[in-house]
């Protein structure tokens, strides 16, 4: 009798366990965000570790003499040079000068380039006439023109802005033009069938369609603009990180050269992050596109 009850209890317990097991089983939900967050966290960690490792190795190798510290400087020396350049020198002013010219040239180049590229939608004739010139202008190595531009616009701020502008404007125009060419003709037709005017088709369909193309040129553009500014400063300038590097090279102060390179790299990264933010802003609601 007792054995029987026990048996029943055991059985009951077994089914209970089984139910529990079923209930306990985690339902698997496709959670893209969670997955993304997880990989994001890991990749940030990995990136930081690689960076730290590189800096430590640099420091170590220059200390024990595997790398000659005269050529390679070292992270600690660079930091020290940086501190003196900030307190006693003009590093901060130079930084503002270079980044100012770059950002201004980038904004002007991107904006005017976009307008130029988008304008090709309005007329096939105009677009066909302009196309070979755009291609030719794109092919000119703009940096080779730098000496002329410095003569034209002086050794001041404006010649740097012009160089940064020239570096970006055609790239953007070409990207925007490709965007315009990729606009779905049926979308245009649909808008016309709803009684739209050309102006409305342009603003409601052409611009948003071309936007991903324009945005895709932003990241390249910011780097190009920076290169333009620095070359301008190399040619002739009173301020800027480029001028600082050139000067340091002339007096064979490699620590100062390295400082300039590190500062430019950080500036470049910062501006890159800026374009990432800009991309998000411009593509709001478009993330879902195709």
């Amino acid at each position: 009798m007792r054995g029987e009850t026990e048996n029943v209890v055991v059985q009951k317990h077994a089914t209970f366990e089984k139910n529990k097991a079923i209930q306990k089983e985690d339902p698997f939900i496709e959670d893209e965000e969670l997955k993304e967050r997880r990989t994001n966290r890991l990749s940030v960690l990995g990136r930081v570790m690689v960076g730290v490792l590189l800096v430590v190795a640099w420091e170590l190798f220059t200390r024990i003499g595997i790398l000659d510290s005269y050529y390679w400087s070292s992270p600690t020396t660079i930091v020290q040079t940086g501190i003196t350049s900030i307190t006693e020198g003009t590093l901060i002013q130079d930084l503002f000068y270079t980044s100012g010219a770059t950002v201004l040239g980038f904004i002007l180049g991107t904006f005017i380039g976009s307008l130029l590229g988008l304008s090709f939608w309005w007329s096939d004739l105009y677009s066909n006439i302009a196309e070979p010139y755009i291609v030719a202008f794109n092919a000119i190595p703009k940096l080779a023109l730098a000496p002329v531009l410095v003569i034209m616009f002086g050794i001041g701020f404006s010649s740097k802005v012009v160089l940064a502008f020239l570096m970006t404007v055609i790239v953007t125009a070409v990207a925007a033009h490709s965007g315009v060419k990729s606009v779905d003709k049926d979308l245009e037709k649909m808008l016309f069938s709803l009684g739209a005017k050309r102006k409305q088709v342009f603003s409601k369909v052409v611009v948003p369609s071309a936007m991903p193309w324009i945005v895709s040129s932003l990241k390249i553009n910011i780097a190009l603009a920076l290169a333009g500014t620095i070359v301008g400063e190399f040619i002739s300038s009173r301020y800027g990180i480029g001028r600082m590097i050139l000067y340091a090279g002339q007096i064979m102060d490699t620590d100062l050269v390295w400082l300039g390179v590190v500062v430019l790299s950080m500036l470049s990264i910062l501006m890159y992050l800026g374009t990432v933010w800009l991309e998000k802003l411009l593509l709001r609601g478009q993330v879902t596109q195709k």
Partner: protein
Amino acid sequence: MSKLEFVNGSKIFKKNGQETVALEKTNLSIEEGKFVSIIGPSGCGKSTLFNMIAGLLQPTTGQILLDGKNIVGKSGQVGYMLQKDLLLPWRTIVSNIILGMELRGVPKKEAEGRALPLMKKYGLGGFEYHYPNELSGGMRQRAALLRTLLYDQDVILLDEPFGALDAQTRLMMQTWLLQIWGDFKKTVLFVTHDIDEAIYLSDEIYVLSPRPGRLKEIVPVHLPRPRDENTLSSDEFVHLKQKLLGMLKEDQERLQKVE
């Protein structure tokens, strides 16, 4: 007087020096409030006809009269849903639906105020602020159709709106369309490849035949309304279906002989 007339209309395309007659001289006369289907094999000029009525394409000859007024080359006079749904991917469903009103200058608030209840009523509730790629094919078609309807024209042209849907969704959408047609009292021109669909929905069926595209026959449908699944098995339905199948088969045989 007919709501929409196409008088001696034709369309010839010329490409690489070769002329294609997309549509031979054709006369159409559609009465107000009718549901008219246009069937015919691929390439017989159905979309071409619609593009001309919608003012997106200039006919080679002929006039298009809406309420007796010539609308040749004037776009925006009729609602037109093209062969694809063509929702703008960067806009939410509701702002896609109000596009026609927006273009006409209706304030956004007011336009949404009209669109939102209709979206609820016609099965798009809960998806107002989603983007098109988050919707099923059937829902996208509904959204495109609502956009066409809210453009507020008496005549609407639907070019194979349900072509890409599975059979079950299709039947649901057909019933839905009939409900909308009843509610909105529009004159509808409807292109389809599907004979069942044409009979089920229409008051009249225009049969076109290809190469060159021309109007072959007008077949009236006298099935009683409202129609439902039982309609599909009625004698009249079966009879009409056989008749239409026969006509399309003739064309096919003729084309095969030519080739």
